[in-house]
């Protein structure tokens, strides 16, 4: 049962078409992420859903109602902006109360509801502070409370955590998930960070240049990328074309490495962690170009006939040096098969 449905949505941004024929379905209570590089159209899609941008084609249907031409201020959706967009002249309390005041809610109802929303985001006691006196994380929580206090039909979040430092980001991620589960709100989340998308979402929609590349559960996107682009985006640094029983170097270069794959595919991809770097003679020959110490393991960039390959060393203590001759083991059983 779809709660939000986008049908062949076209949205122009400036003179370019930012979103092309987008189809998307979000179920009630789901948390769906729009994931992709900057410029892929995810924010444009979100703003179109909120009514801040007018689509040039297609429909937006919410809970059975066609809202494509409904003005933004009547859509009853919450939007948490990347910049938070708190009203600087209003206290945290008044920011959260803004929407309720517009609806002329009587004070007896308004006060406890606002207080509850502020408490739900863990900011009890900060009601009278002005945004300038709040930290980034606190501002972000006020922005969230402001949106959810209105019990919106749909909550849209546009890269809400990108301005926070790494530790806070992880913390807030968990908070968002908890709140979403507790309130059962349907959420659409825009991000360019794949870790965020993987940890939060019920489903991930990977976008590229205004179109959907893959729309699936996190496990599927992670382990079974549908296209070469998705694989590249999700960290499959070793991506090769496969035809005539062999892997081919990318970009039409001459190198090839014969390999049998368990099934049909146009591309095969491996994450660095799946590619051991071994002593010469144990696979595809190569030479170490660079090494990176990553704490848990050492990552090597190895020049091979198939181009540069990223693999990991088996042993943290010992290891290869730049210029060493090594070999790369590409295990067909561990490959992600695409197309």
């Amino acid at each position: 049962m779809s709660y939000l449905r986008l049908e062949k949505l076209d949205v122009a941004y400036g003179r370019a078409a930012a979103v092309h024929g987008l189809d998307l379905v979000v179920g009630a209570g789901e948390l769906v992420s729009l994931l992709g590089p900057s410029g892929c159209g995810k924010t444009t899609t979100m703003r179109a859903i909120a009514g801040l941008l007018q689509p040039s084609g297609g429909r937006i249907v919410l809970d059975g109602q066609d809202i494509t031409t409904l003005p933004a201020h009547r859509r009853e959706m919450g939007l948490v902006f990347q910049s938070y967009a708190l009203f600087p002249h209003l206290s945290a309390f008044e920011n959260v109360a803004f929407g309720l005041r517009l609806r002329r809610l009587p004070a007896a109802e308004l006060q406890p509801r606002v207080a509850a929303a502020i408490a739900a985001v863990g900011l009890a006691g900060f009601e009278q502070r002005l945004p300038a006196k709040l930290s980034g994380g606190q501002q972000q929580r006020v922005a969230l409370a402001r949106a959810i206090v209105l019990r919106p039909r749909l909550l849209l979040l546009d890269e809400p955590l990108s301005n926070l430092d790494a530790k806070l980001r992880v913390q807030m991620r968990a908070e968002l998930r908890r709140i979403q589960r507790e309130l059962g709100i349907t959420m659409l989340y825009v991000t360019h960070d794949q870790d965020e998308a993987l940890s939060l979402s019920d489903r991930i929609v990977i976008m590229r240049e205004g179109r959907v590349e893959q729309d699936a559960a996190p496990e599927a996107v992670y382990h079974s990328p549908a296209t070469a682009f998705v694989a590249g985006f999700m960290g499959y640094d070793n991506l090769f074309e496969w035809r005539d029983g062999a892997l081919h170097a990318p970009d039409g270069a001459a190198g090839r490495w014969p390999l049998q794959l368990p099934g049909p595919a146009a591309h095969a991809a491996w994450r660095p962690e799946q590619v051991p770097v071994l002593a010469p003679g144990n696979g595809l020959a190569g030479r170490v170009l660079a090494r990176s110490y990553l704490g848990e393991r050492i990552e090597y960039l190895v020049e091979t006939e198939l181009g540069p390959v990223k693999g990991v060393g088996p042993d943290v203590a010992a290891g290869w040096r730049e210029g060493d001759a090594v070999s790369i083991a590409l295990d067909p059983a561990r490959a992600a098969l695409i197309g």
Partner: protein
Amino acid sequence: MRSRIPWWLLAPALALVGLLFVLPVAALLAGAFKIDGHLGLAHFTAFFDEPLHTQVYWRTLRIAGLATVVSALVCYPAAMAMVKVPARWRGLLTGLVILPLMVSPIARTYSWIVLLGRNGLANSLLVGSGVFDEPATLLFTEGAVFVGLLQLMMPLMLLSLVSALENLPPDVLAAAQTLGANRWQSFARVVLPLTQEGLIVGGTLVFTGCVTAFITPALLGGPKVLMLETLLYQKVNVASDMAAASVIAVLLLLTTIVVNQVLKRVSR
């Protein structure tokens, strides 16, 4: 950063402004309070005894106030439109708004003489279309002075508001919309409170600009519609009444200072 006062850098400017500006002006203003060698307010009471003078003072404040209100009403929406103009045209648009400020006020005011004179455009249209039988006297009226001053001062309000609108935090308007505010509510509850400093600055510039205007009232109001500065000129050149001139000078300065201070408090 050095901490000694660099006298040699400041002395020339200080000397010029101090000796050849502050002192003479202070002497002039003091003259308003000196009667036969001792201090008093007799000049002021004598000034306000004359009904013409009170009328002129009141007229000056009235026209200035009206011009300020009208320019605010027109320039707020105009400024909101201007900040949304694509970047390609912004520079040109800003230049077009600044240009009038750089052109001689005489030229700018003169265009109203062309428009409102007996053979001017307005009368050509009114008589030509049969609304009036003969040309109406549009010049040398309060309306003419008002329109001339409004045109002179409006860029100040417009630029001030544009600057304030540009400094709005990003997405604040969009946030208001998603929270359910329609256009008017967004304006009244978010834009207005956040840009009120720009409004105050613009309002101060327009109001004091109108109160201290000379050219426009002189050309469009003439001796019939006197404003404070044209009255002062008359007192000096025609009536040789330096006492009254000093009183007007004090009034001009006082009004400017009071308006500045009041508007500063209001914005707190």
